[in-house]
């Protein structure tokens, strides 16, 4: 449920959907590891009219990919709304702010601030991780740019970028009781909306949301739930054991394993989770991230009854 009507700060489509009290639905495209827009053009067409904005991951899993910035710009040129992801691993505050100036000047309005996977996971494990700022400090820097018109150093920025500021939170990380507090730190720092880590264990997510609602976080930021269609039981099991910071429920794995058509079951699970989130207190929308399976997003969204998307 969203139902929360608030003032518009920035005016991105995503913000308008959320501020109008409607349940938002966003998508995600992982840029490729070579110099081409082909996958973006393809998936953008699939998602056109089906999602309110599209995230572009920033060197996801610490593997070199086409930059989130360039991908976002491409989507703008295609007449759709991007959500620029930015991790703390690859840039210091200088490079980040410079990218924000450029991104805003080009018309990008949504940013998602993340810590970033450790470089040890990627294809350049010997590189120097930057982590000049952490994600909370990054959010605060963006808020000051927008609301106070000044850079991190305090100097004035003549034409300051005004972003709709997003953050992530992982209800499946530990210590569990600290996760809502960490989210509160991000909201205090200036986060307007939240996209959670993908939910593959609904029970734990429910407990997380209860704690968030107790703290009143849903009244101060739009909390959107991460939904991931998982193509195969093998992948679900891998995420259950091999991906740090993820919890995949036994039920989720077994349903995929027992299904005759695992892909159809994956869509069904996502649809059920979305519909469940629609009923949950404090959840303002869903973020559908179909990693390496972007083309499935439209049918998930449609089956969940989220179409047509609002227009303004």
């Amino acid at each position, binding site marked *: 449920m969203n139902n929360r009507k608030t003032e518009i700060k920035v005016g991105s489509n995503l913000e308008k959907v959320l501020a109008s009290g409607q349940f938002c639905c966003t998508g995600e495209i992982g840029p490729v590891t070579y110099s081409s827009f082909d996958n973006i053009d393809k998936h953008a067409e699939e998602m056109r009219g089906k999602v309110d904005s599209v995230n572009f991951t920033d060197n996801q899993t610490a593997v070199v990919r086409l930059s989130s910035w360039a991908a976002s710009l491409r989507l703008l040129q295609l007449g759709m709304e991007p959500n620029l992801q930015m991790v703390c691993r690859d840039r210091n505050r200088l490079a980040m702010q410079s990218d924000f100036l450029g991104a805003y000047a080009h018309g990008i309005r949504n940013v998602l601030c993340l*810590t970033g996977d450790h470089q040890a996971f990627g294809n350049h494990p010997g590189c120097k991780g930057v982590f000049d*700022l*952490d994600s*909370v400090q990054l959010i*605060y820097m963006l808020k000051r740019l927008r609301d106070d018109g000044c850079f*991190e150093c305090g100097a004035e920025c003549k034409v300051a970028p005004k972003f709709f500021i997003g953050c992530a939170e*992982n209800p499946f990380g530990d210590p569990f009781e600290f996760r809502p507090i960490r989210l509160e730190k991000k909201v205090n720092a200036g986060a307007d909306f939240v996209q959670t880590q993908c939910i593959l264990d609904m029970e734990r997510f429910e407990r997380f949301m209860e704690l968030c609602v107790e703290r009143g976080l849903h009244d101060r930021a739009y909390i959107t739930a991460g939904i991931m269609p998982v193509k195969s039981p093998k992948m679900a099991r891998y995420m259950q054991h091999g991906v*740090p910071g993820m919890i995949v429920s036994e039920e989720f794995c077994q349903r995929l394993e027992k299904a005759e058509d695992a892909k159809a079951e994956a869509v069904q699970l996502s649809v059920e989770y979305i519909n469940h989130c629609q009923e949950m207190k404090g959840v303002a929308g869903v973020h559908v991230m179909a990693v390496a399976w972007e083309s499935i997003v439209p049918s998930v969204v449609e089956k969940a009854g989220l179409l047509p998307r609002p227009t303004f």
Partner: protein
Amino acid sequence: MIVVENKSAEDILKMVAPYKKILVAGCYGCVTVCLAGGEKEVGLLASQIRMAREKEGNPIEVLEQTVERQCDKEYLVNFQDKARDVEAIVSLACGIGIQYLAQVYEPIPVFPGVNTQFLGANLDVGVWEEYCMACGECVLDKTGGICPIARCSKSLLNGPCGGSQEGKCEVDKSVDCAWHLIYDRLKALGQLDKMAEYIPAKNWHRNEGPRKLVKEDLTLEQ
């Protein structure tokens, strides 16, 4: 202490290949405690070099000496007699000692016999772990006495990243998540409110080149 690891004899033999008479210089400081650069290790390396060169039919004379601290000029002068006599020096001190020795005994070439690793604690026999990065602005008061700069793989200041699970760091299951440790410690201390406190962006203090500390009261005395 400063924790170092010995370079391989093979690497060191390459460095000293052109010379016939060298000095292996040890230090009684940290490198003695971490069993890599004290008197005993100096003796060990010196005989390794001698034996290897003997075998090659290219003998070398290797002098040995260990001083109190190589990072202090007062003790470095003790190398004077032997240093004057050799073509090169291999130092088993940390990176600081090696550089200072090279500076004081210029133009004698000085080579590193160790890889300086980190500032760490001796957790068990033969086990050391990084505990401090000498960041220049200690935050241990805010973090229950556990350093997030050195012990969190991402040097985060506002709590654990999303990869923290069951007390372990996302980088490796054998690595404790520093922020989980901090959480547990603050909880035990009844100071969990500190976890909610915003810690602002850090001044990494690298903006003036190498850092320098001058204690005016001490310099004026001299």
